Every structure is written in structure tokens, then in C-alpha cells.
């Protein structure tokens, strides 16, 4: 096992860090699903619908996919797209881990010399990638006009987030001394 993974294991042995990863990851996953509009306002009555499970592989965007189940509550609709949730969970885990190591860098500077918030900043691109049919949600919110280049960039925001989060996590782990970690 590489040094980075050993460091990560040492970090996760501390319950507070595990709670931090799980809590922040859950919040991020929720935000991700809202950004993708898999969680949205509106809904008439309690209802649970399903469709052909093979639909889960049909793409709705560059890396977003069809839902195969829908939970409707009064005022809220949740679309369950397994691959979107998987994608969101991977990013949420990376966000949680980044947050945990950033927390260590902030609270225990002797154990980690990477005292910056780079890891958290890396999580934002994926949140901007939510799509509203044929225009990114952020474009609708800001009411701006976008170019062809802008749309191309938008289509790679989710993979870009994953790469950025992996890189920042690796950089921070390399500068963390597991032997100096404490509760």
C-alpha cells in the first residue's frame, strides 16, 4: 500500500474524521442531486414509480443518466438515477476526504503542512454542471448568454471535478504526517 493510502487510513481511524467525511459527503451528494435537478420542487401526491432498469444507461448529458425510479411527495420530487447517484457519491466521497484533510491541515498544522482550501474549491465545478434540459442551470439563474466554447467547458465540469479532487487529495496526503495525527 502506498504512503498516501496509509496516511488516509490513519486519518480515517479517527472517529471525528470519519464523521466529517460522512457528513460533508452526504450534504454534497444532496447538493449534487439538486444541481442535476434529480431533486426538485413540485409534486402533487405521494407516489413511487419505476421504469425499465436498463434505462439507467441512457445518457441525458455528457456524464448524466436517466432515472429509473421516482419518488413524489407533496411539494418535492426525487428522481433516482443509479449512475448519477454513483457519480455523485464518488465526488461526495472525494469532497469529504478533501474536507477531512483540510480540517487536519487547519487544526493540526504540525501534522499537515498544506494549509489551504484548494481541496474544497475543487468540488465546485461539479455543482455547476447541473443541466436544465438544454442549458446549464447556472446559465438560467444568471441570465447570461453563452458561447459554444462555454458549453464545451460545461460538458466536462463533472469529470474535471473528479480529477481536481483526486489531485488535491493526493497533494495534501503527501504533506500529511500520520504519526503526528491526534484526536
Amino acid at each position, binding site marked *: *500500500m*502506498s504512503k*498516501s*493510502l496509509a496516511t488516509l487510513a490513519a486519518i480515517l481511524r479517527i472517529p471525528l474524521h470519519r464523521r466529517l467525511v460522512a457528513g460533508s459527503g452526504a450534504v454534497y451528494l444532496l447538493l449534487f442531486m439538486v444541481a442535476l*435537478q434529480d431533486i*426538485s*420542487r*413540485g*409534486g*402533487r401526491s405521494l407516489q413511487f*414509480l419505476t*421504469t425499465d432498469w436498463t*434505462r439507467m*444507461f*441512457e*445518457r*441525458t*448529458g*455528457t*456524464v448524466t*443518466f*436517466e*432515472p*429509473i*425510479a*421516482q419518488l*413524489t411527495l407533496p411539494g418535492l*420530487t426525487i*428522481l433516482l438515477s443509479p*449512475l448519477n447517484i454513483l457519480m455523485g457519491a*464518488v465526488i461526495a466521497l472525494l469532497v469529504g476526504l478533501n474536507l477531512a484533510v483540510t480540517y487536519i491541515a487547519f487544526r493540526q498544522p504540525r501534522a499537515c503542512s498544506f494549509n489551504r482550501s484548494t481541496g474544497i474549491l475543487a468540488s465546485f465545478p461539479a455543482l455547476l454542471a447541473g*443541466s*436544465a*434540459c*438544454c*442549458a*446549464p*442551470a447556472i*446559465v*438560467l439563474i444568471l*441570465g*447570461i*448568454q*453563452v*458561447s*459554444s466554447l462555454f*458549453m*464545451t467547458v*460545461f*460538458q466536462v465540469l463533472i*469529470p474535471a471535478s*473528479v480529477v481536481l479532487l*483526486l489531485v488535491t487529495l*493526493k497533494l495534501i496526503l503527501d504533506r500529511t504526517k500520520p504519526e503526528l495525527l491526534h484526536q
Partner: protein
Amino acid sequence: MRWFHRLAVAVTALSLAVYGLATQAGQGEDPTLPLAESGYVLDDAIDDYADFMMSGGPPPDGIPAIDDPVFIEASEADLDPGDKVIGFYHEGEAHAYPQLIMVHHEIVNDRVGGLNLAVTYCPLTATAQGFERGETTFGVSGQLLNSNVVLFDRETRSYFSQITARGLRGEYQDETLAEVNLIWTTWGHWSSKYPDTKVLSEDTGHLRNYSRDPYGSYNPLGGYYEQDGTMFPLMHSSDRHHTKEMVVGARTSEASAYFVMSDLVRDEVQSTDRFLAVYAPDLDTGYIYSIDDSAPQVTSRGDGTYEMDGGIFEADELPLEKLVSVEAFFFAWHAFYPESEYVAAPTRVGERVRLAVEPA
């Protein structure tokens, strides 16, 4: 660093596998696609349109068309009288397509009164247009042209501009689809005129939040639909009207025209050199006729009927050449047809001048 490489390889492999499984539907159908005998006038070269296309985000069929529509009775429809619907009536059969469903799918491959047609809707340009489809089906390409949806036929995968009905790329490049007249109206108007109408059901085969429009709202008007501004680049733009002003337009092989809906509602009859428009209060829509400088005398009788040459006619039955009328946001119509004829705004309060404007 080795674990990082392994993770990167695994993520890449998973992405490729998922991409490969994302199959596209709709192959192997009859290629016969009904086409118009003569195309509509174009204000730009077909290659310029094709070059101006850009991605709106989703891949082809990423916005899934409804290929097996299910209909319910009007009495079962959970619609408010003010909700927008797209209506089509043919051979005694009426179908209504709620805007809140159409905004998530943009195309319904339907059959009404024995006619196979694609009912298409672009939320960004507020255009609802119907095209005969023969035995093939249409899908949403994910490309946009002047913010307007670009369709593709599933047999040849040729791309078509919705507003111009013209083939942009592929086997049908520069060909024009055979278009039918759809009605952009409210559920209250449509169900009053056609109480036996069938209504597109939310049982679309796809799961979506059909109580919500991701762009805004028509009932009441809000969001993108009332904001003055556009999202994507346009080939032509003008500040003559608010970008989202609703106009009703029509084109022939030689010219095009648009009429501002709110002005047409007030005046009931308007004309330019080559086009005449009348307002139909029963469906809150406009019909446009080609008049070719004949300047017919058409007057409203105040009850939704019109008098012409001593006869009395419904708004959609004047003894003139009726054209396909398309309601659209002004910016969208102008982006495609900047040389359209139009009725100039009044020059003095209380005096409305009907001016036939020559193309710029």
C-alpha cells in the same frame, strides 16, 4: 502514486463501459419522409445555418422524445384552464400536449386522424411545430440553432432546424419538411373548442417532474419566459420588441412576415404587402394567409368571424391561401427571418398606421 494511477484507470474504464452501454434507439425504419414541394424562404445560406449550430449540452436523444404516447380523456387531465397546451386537430381527432410535459421531451412521435406526425416544441424559442413523419420518427439532436431545437430523423440521422423546417445536414440537407399547423394556446381555450380532445398523459415511459418547468412558468408568466434576454448566440438580433414578445409568423417560398400577438388581439385583422393575419378568439391564436398584393377587404364582425367579399367566415376558413402559422418569441423569429415583413408600431397615440414594410 501507484494507487492514484490504478484509481484513474478504473474511473476511465468505468466511464468507457457506461458510455458504451448508452445505446441509441430507433434504427431500421422506413426512410420515406414526407417533404414539402417547395421550401420556405431562407434569409441565410443553408451552410451558414449548419455552421452556426452549437451544442446545447445533451447528446442526441439525451432529451428523450415520446415515441409511444399514451392519451387520457379531457375529464381525467389535471390541468388548470390557464396552463399552456399545444393542440392539433385532424380528421375529427383532437390531441392536446401539455407544455409541462413537452418541456421535458420536446418531441412526440404521434398519429392523429390517420396522420403520422412529430409534434415538436422548443422551450427556448416558444415554438410548437408539427411535421409529417411518414414511418420514421424524430429525436432531439441536442444541437441548437439560434436557441432553437435541432431535430433529427432516426432513419438517416439528418439534422433539421425546427423553425425553418429545413434540413441542415445529412441526406435531407436543404429539403423542407411537410409542416402542419399546431395551435399554441391554453387548456381552457382548447378544451372549450374540443371537449372530446385526448390529452397526452404523464405516462411517457420516462420519469420526470412534470409539475415543474426547469426554465420558468407560463401560468403565471415567470422565469426565462418573461426575462428580456437570450441564452445562446443569434445570427440576427433586434431591439424592435422585447425579446420574449410573442409573435405569430408565416413564410412562403418567397417571403415571410410576423405579427405581434398582442397587437393582433387588439386589431383582429392586420396585413402587410403579402400577408394577412386574423385573430381567432376561440383559441387565442392567429392565422396567416398569403395575399400577394391583392389587398382583400377583411373585417371583423366582433364574434370571432370575419366578413370578406360578402361572405362570413371563421378565422381559419377565409377564402385565401392559408399558411402554416407559427407562434414564437420575437427574438427567435427575427434570428431566422430578419427580412420579415411586419406591421410598424403606431406613430401617434390613438392612431394606428398599418404599414407594409419592405424587407430591409
